């Protein structure tokens, strides 16, 4: 380790305490008019509880958050190959459009006559999503992927109940699924029946058929799946599901691999959420906000949640109440993530039908190129066939030498990369799931491949300690997760005497 500095700063990286350790109750970065001191209309219910919220002037606030920002990795800084997360470039035109006064400064309950452009934008987004997916309808309001899954599963539930088959409670979920799938099925009141994984990473028609029965409500399949593979039997699985009177929920998290190339509607899908923050480039923002519009088949469309946009002549109106309709209810207040709709539509208009197909092709090409370059140096469990938009490796070739997936990930941090997704999908031990996306140039892929290959070389050279000590060059070394969970400290408190607070005071 390089010697400590007096300031605690390390070159461009500034040490930065909490706002609670620098700000104070009388500091502020705003100048507001003085209140007149009129008597309140609160009948004494004014605040007695202390606020004790620190305030900082504008320059201090700027510095605080700029300093924090510099401790983050980001797509704009480099390759962000997190499998299943589709960390692609976020075009800045989208940001500008979302901030147009005519979108950003609109209240969701304004009279509809004053928001016709916003409703038209939502309709146009719906048209693009339906046309791309080959589905007749879309519920725009879900606020994220898992919320979209919930929407789709509630539509399935409503359709079953409308058929008098509400007794169907079992939902089939392959063990390779994202955790949100079983969690969503449970949240929607279903029971989860897991389809065990096969050695080839795929869902087999026979396994599905073996699970079918009159109590099966739906199957939830991710396609392309979490192993980065397209499910070759998907159409036949869909047919078998439909013959059994159940519905097919498709997790659209990996839609980026097939956008403009394959329409999920042609595969027999009944419901699929689309993560606008993945395929359609709305920024991930350090964890959100997302948006999860959910396309629905003709069988499920009547049950779509409110609000619905209704065209009357040339005017668009909003149907905001489920009462008196077949809509299963409401996903959230208002109409969904408008700010994300604007960004996603800007992205779609920019690419067009031709550009979107190119997106899928380049995403798949980039992944297969990495697979080809890495396969000789790592274990690639399904590497004998082409992958879709992500490459699945595992640590079986390096683990006997003492280096695991987590160590490889931490070594990549020192090399200036965000690592791949680690230990997911669960069906592959020590999984390393790499999704480069289509917005990476070839030279970045080459550089990343060379880094990975060099790391494999260090494993072979027996440099186990190098990996176990990594990362050394990041703003922080490995953090103690166990300590965080065993002694949860989830907020600052006045008089704080935790190790961290003492250290900050020193």
């Amino acid at each position, binding site marked *: 380790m390089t010697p400590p500095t007096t300031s605690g700063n390390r070159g461009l990286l500034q040490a930065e305490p909490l706002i609670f350790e620098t700000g104070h109750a009388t500091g502020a970065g705003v100048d507001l008019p003085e209140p007149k001191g009129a008597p309140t209309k609160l009948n004494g219910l004014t*605040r007695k509880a202390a606020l004790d919220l620190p305030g900082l002037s504008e320059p201090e606030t700027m510095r605080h958050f700029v300093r924090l920002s510099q401790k983050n990795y980001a797509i704009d800084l480099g390759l962000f190959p997190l499998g299943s997360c589709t960390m692609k470039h976020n075009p800045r035109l989208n940001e500008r*459009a979302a901030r147009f*006064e005519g979108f950003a400064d609109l209240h969701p309950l304004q009279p509809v006559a004053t928001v016709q452009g916003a409703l038209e934008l939502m309709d146009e987004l719906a048209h693009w999503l339906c*046309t791309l997916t080959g589905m007749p309808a879309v519920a725009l309001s879900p606020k994220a992927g898992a919320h979209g899954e919930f929407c789709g599963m509630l539509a399935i539930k409503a359709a079953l109940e409308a058929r008098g088959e509400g007794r169907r409670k079992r939902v089939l979920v392959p063990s390779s699924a994202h955790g949100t799938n079983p969690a969503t099925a449970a949240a929607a009141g279903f029971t989860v029946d897991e389809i065990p994984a096969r050695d080839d990473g795929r869902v087999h028609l026979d396994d599905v058929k073996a699970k079918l029965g009159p109590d099966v409500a739906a199957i939830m399949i991710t396609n392309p799946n979490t192993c980065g593979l397209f499910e070759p039997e998907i159409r036949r699985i869909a047919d078998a599901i439909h013959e059994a009177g159940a519905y097919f929920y498709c997790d659209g998290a990996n839609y980026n691999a097939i956008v403009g190339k394959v329409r999920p509607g042609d595969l027999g899908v009944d419901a699929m959420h689309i993560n606008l923050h993945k395929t359609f480039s709305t920024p991930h923002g350090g964890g959100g906000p997302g948006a999860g519009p959910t396309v629905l088949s003709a069988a499920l469309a009547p049950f779509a949640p409110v609000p619905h946009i209704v065209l009357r002549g040339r005017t668009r109106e909003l149907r905001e109440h489920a009462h008196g309709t077949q809509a299963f209810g409401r996903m959230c207040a*208002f109409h969904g993530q408008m700010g994300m709709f604007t960004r996603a539509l800007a992205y779609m208009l920019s690419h067009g039908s031709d550009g979107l197909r190119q997106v899928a092709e380049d995403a798949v090409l980039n992944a297969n190129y990495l697979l080809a370059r890495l396969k000789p140096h790592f274990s690639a469990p399904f590497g004998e066939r082409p992958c879709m938009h992500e490459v699945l490796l595992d640590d079986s070739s390096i683990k006997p030498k003492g280096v695991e997936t987590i160590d490889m990930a931490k070594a990549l941090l020192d090399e200036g990369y*965000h690592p791949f997704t680690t230990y997911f999908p669960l069906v592959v031990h020590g999984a390393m799931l790499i999704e480069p996306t289509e917005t990476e140039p070839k030279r970045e892929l080459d550089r990343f491949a060379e880094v990975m290959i060099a790391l494999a070389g260090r494993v072979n050279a027996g440099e186990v300690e190098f990996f176990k000590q990594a990362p050394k060059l990041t703003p922080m070394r490995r953090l103690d997760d166990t300590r965080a969970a065993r002694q949860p400290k989830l907020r600052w408190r006045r008089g704080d005497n935790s190790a961290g607070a003492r250290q900050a005071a020193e």
Partner: protein
Amino acid sequence: MRYLPLTDADREQMLAVIGVKTVDDLFVDVPNAALLKSLVDLPRAQGELEVHRRLQRLAEKNTPAGRTAFFLGAGAYRHHVPASVDHLIQRSEFLTAYTPYQPEIAQGTLQALYEFQSQVAQLLDVEIANASMYDGSTACAEAAMMAARVTKRKKIVFSGGVHPHYVDTARTACEAQGLEIVALPAAIDDEAAVAKELSADVAAVVVQSPNLFGTVTDLTQIGEAARGAGALMVATFTECVAFGLIEPAGAYGADIVCGEGQSIGNALNFGGPYVGLFGVREKYIRQMPGRVAGETIDADGKRGFVLTLSTREQHIRREKATSNICTNSGLCQLAWTIHMTLLGEKGLRQLATLNHEKAIELADALAKVKGVEVLTERFFNEIAVKLPKPAQEVVDTLAARGVIAGVAMSRLNPRAGMDDVLIACATEMNTDEDIAAYAKALQEALQ
């Protein structure tokens, strides 16, 4: 295509390295019938200028709030957001980062989350807050479901003052899990009515203060009654600026305090994205939904932050998770934290007081209009008024005159029998001229 860096020469080279002839050879697992042979029927790619122009034209078909005298709240509020907030959240390192799963290179996001959780806990006077929810309505639904988990009971009672969209959102989510929602009839000032519904099968009472009609309520006795019956008190809100002036629900003993944070840091955005605030008692944290950041140390003993208590979450617990939530409202939460840092205690108190004074001025001005009655007695920045005409008609008439008068209760709940009730709000954004214009337009519309 400007966002796609590969050249045709790159593609050729890469295909050769892979050992296939065409890119379609990589799609071998797709059933041939499903592989599209031609482009989908949508327009072709366009340049930045063309797309800008197209979206600008759509935007111009709307009437932005700022071009009107604007008095609409009811779940989303128009406040001034300092310019530095939007600048900071657009920094690449915040905007284009992922969920901080690799804490060594995500301390910026993680420390900001920890600061957010601390600020929310201070503001709501709760023990612990999470790292944000999608919005207020989904936060409220999650609170109802959490109460059912904590108490192992199945009935949730909503007061007649809770925003109808919140009730509908919770009903949709809860009924799917076999929980029962009892929604009391709309009431301007009767949060306490929930106490009469308490029984051995009630998991929670859900109250709102300030409520849909702006009414501010002392929740102490409701909380005591709930506790006495073994139920939780969930307190929701739609206007978080209020807690710079009024007592927060945490101080009244609420077990879960949840609601909308949009007012701080975030634009109206036609309904989203927003940011849900969620606070609980410490003893319930393992039943809490959503992500949470916690303090720890690194291998050198330095203070750092990580996402923690993830054994509650879907990626570990799968179908046994406390919630299916994965995404939070990251960037909106960051905007909230930055704006709250600029305000601090002094700024927030001042802002809240200004809002309250504006609302008093609005209430006084509207009360002077013949036939108009202000129904809300104790309010923060929002009031319900009774009109001598259907409120929707008045809203539409005034909109045509450049005054957004508020929202008609009939739009939020057509079956409440309150067609003559209008809900209006005032914030620091409203000038004296706006208020005068509103009163004048209303007077003329009612003549």
